């Protein structure tokens, strides 16, 4: 492998890790605070992608400007789903929420397939495909922009969770729900808020992904898996863990993808299983169980 090739792989990994961090951020939040592995996460991502696509096709909204809109829409959607459905079984054994979010994923993805068909779409703007080069390494503008938005959202969430009263209520509920309720926190409202934020972040990730990769309604499942792997690598607990997990995962995906593409899934999952067995709390995290 030449030096130039290695440099390009490194740059690709950095650009990828930004979006992946955003993909995993909402997933990690919901898992860490509510102890729910939200298998609907991928469907939220796809919904974000279609919102951006729709706004771009109908009103020629710049895809970067549609990010806040899809975040707002998905926040409301996630809030409602938590309030109406998930909250009803949240204290049941774990299989319940696992199956429930899985059923919702099937339902949403199939409805998207029904309305939009399985055609592959992509959001093309005037600046799609253009970029700059440093030496022999190419950096597309869109991926750089997506990385910027991702970093911004990660920092905003980090600040919200640590600095604001509401954010601290969320973290407190995640640490000990009974103690939080004793201090006057309305746990169901906090849970709905958390799930809404998780969905909103998925929506943002979907909006960004719609510019970067071609998508169809079935795109989401793969990203739910990635989000899970990233959370396992980084561990739960705070946004820094997500960043570490995303960075490690991006390096592995880019590297394995360029060496043995046929077995990339087996390698990733093999790594995951080994990591789970050796260090269930992740490289950087505390135990979540």
């Amino acid at each position, binding site marked *: 492998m030449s030096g130039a090739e290695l440099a390009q792989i490194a740059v690709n990994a950095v650009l990828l890790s930004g979006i992946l961090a955003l993909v995993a951020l909402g997933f990690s939040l919901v898992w860490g605070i509510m102890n729910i592995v939200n298998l609907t996460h991928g469907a939220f991502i796809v919904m974000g992608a279609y919102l951006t696509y729709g706004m771009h096709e109908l009103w020629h909204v710049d895809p970067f400007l549609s990010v806040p809109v899809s975040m707002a829409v998905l926040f409301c959607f996630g809030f409602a789903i938590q309030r109406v459905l998930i909250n009803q079984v949240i204290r049941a054994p774990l299989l*319940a929420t*696992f199956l429930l979010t*899985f059923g919702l994923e*099937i339902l949403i993805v199939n409805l998207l397939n029904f309305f939009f068909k399985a055609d592959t779409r992509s959001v093309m703007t005037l600046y799609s495909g253009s970029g700059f080069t440093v030496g022999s390494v190419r950096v597309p503008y869109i991926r750089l922009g997506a990385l910027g938005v991702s970093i911004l959202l990660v920092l905003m969430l980090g600040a919200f969770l640590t600095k604001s009263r509401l954010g601290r209520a969320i973290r407190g509920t995640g640490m000990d729900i009974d103690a939080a309720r004793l201090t006057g926190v309305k746990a169901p409202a906090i849970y709905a808020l958390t799930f809404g934020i998780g969905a909103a972040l998925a929506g943002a990730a979907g909006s960004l992904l719609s510019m970067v990769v071609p998508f169809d309604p079935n795109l989401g499942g793969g990203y739910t898996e990635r989000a899970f792997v990233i959370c*396992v690598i980084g561990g739960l607990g705070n946004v820094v863990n997500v960043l570490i997990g995303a960075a490690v995962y991006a390096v592995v995906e880019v590297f394995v993808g360029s060496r043995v593409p046929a077995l990339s899934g087996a390698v990733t999952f093999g790594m995951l299983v080994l990591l789970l067995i050796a260090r269930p709390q992740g490289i950087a995290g505390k135990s979540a169980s």
Partner: protein
Amino acid sequence: MRAFRIAFLLAVFATLLVLPRFVSSYKLLTYTTVLCLAIMAQGWNFIGGYTGYAAFGNVAYFGIGAYTTGLLMISKWHISFFPALAAGALLSACVATLLGVPILRLKGHYFAIATLGVAEAFREIAGAWDRVTEGATGIDLPLRSDSAFYYYTALGFVVFGVALTALLAKSKLGYGWVAIREDQDAAKMLGINTTMFKVAAYALSAVFASIAGSIIAYQNIHVAPNDFFKIEYTLQMIIACVIGGTGSVWGPLLGAAVYQLLSTFVWSHFIELHPTVLGGIIVFFVVFLPRGLMELLRRFAAVLKGGRFGSDVFLANIRASRLD
């Protein structure tokens, strides 16, 4: 009541026995598929229902069974079907034991995803190991045009599964599983060798999945990675268990039948929205009837004995597990 139940079961069994005489051989293939779903669901019931471990990768053993059977039958020794099926089941049990020891140390979500990962890894290995499995093309099995053979084989294993489940549910093993499901630490304190019990449940579920895989492989006469390692099979066995009632002897059987009825109905009426309706069914059962249709039957039985049906049947779960 007891006599009525026995008479009913005998009638159902007799109907199943004479069924091949009255339906077309194409229809019979569908019925065999349902029976195989029941076999897989019975297997999943051991680990997912009784022991309470959400295994999401049992399709791995379905595929291993299918491939082992196929490869042995077309090998130069031309091994016949039943020994090949047994070899597949044995291999699945060994793989499940080897993987189960480390994986079953994981809890909750981690266990679920690790099993999912195992299944994905096996699918890719089957697709990439060209010299043995012919890669994505798959292998062809010898043809056997006797569809009643598959049906009776599957029916035999379903009956065996019911008998085994009923036997184990009242044994030390079965009680140990339930104890682990309810409180693993307490079970350990009582002197239950939790690792051994869990691995036994997992290996048993693998054997059943493997048997179903062998039968389906022989019936379809073609085994390819994407047909036999697809996650839909894992889902079907879980959904069948949830619809019927997890952790019960008859639940998986009832669930497989009802799932197939619903699925056929939905296919013929809303073909494009089939997964939507399926997703809706999952959501309905998880929220309103998590103990499955067996719970309804139990309540009907209580009414027949002069008890009350209970008006809270669909709301009991929500009352117990919602967060106010």
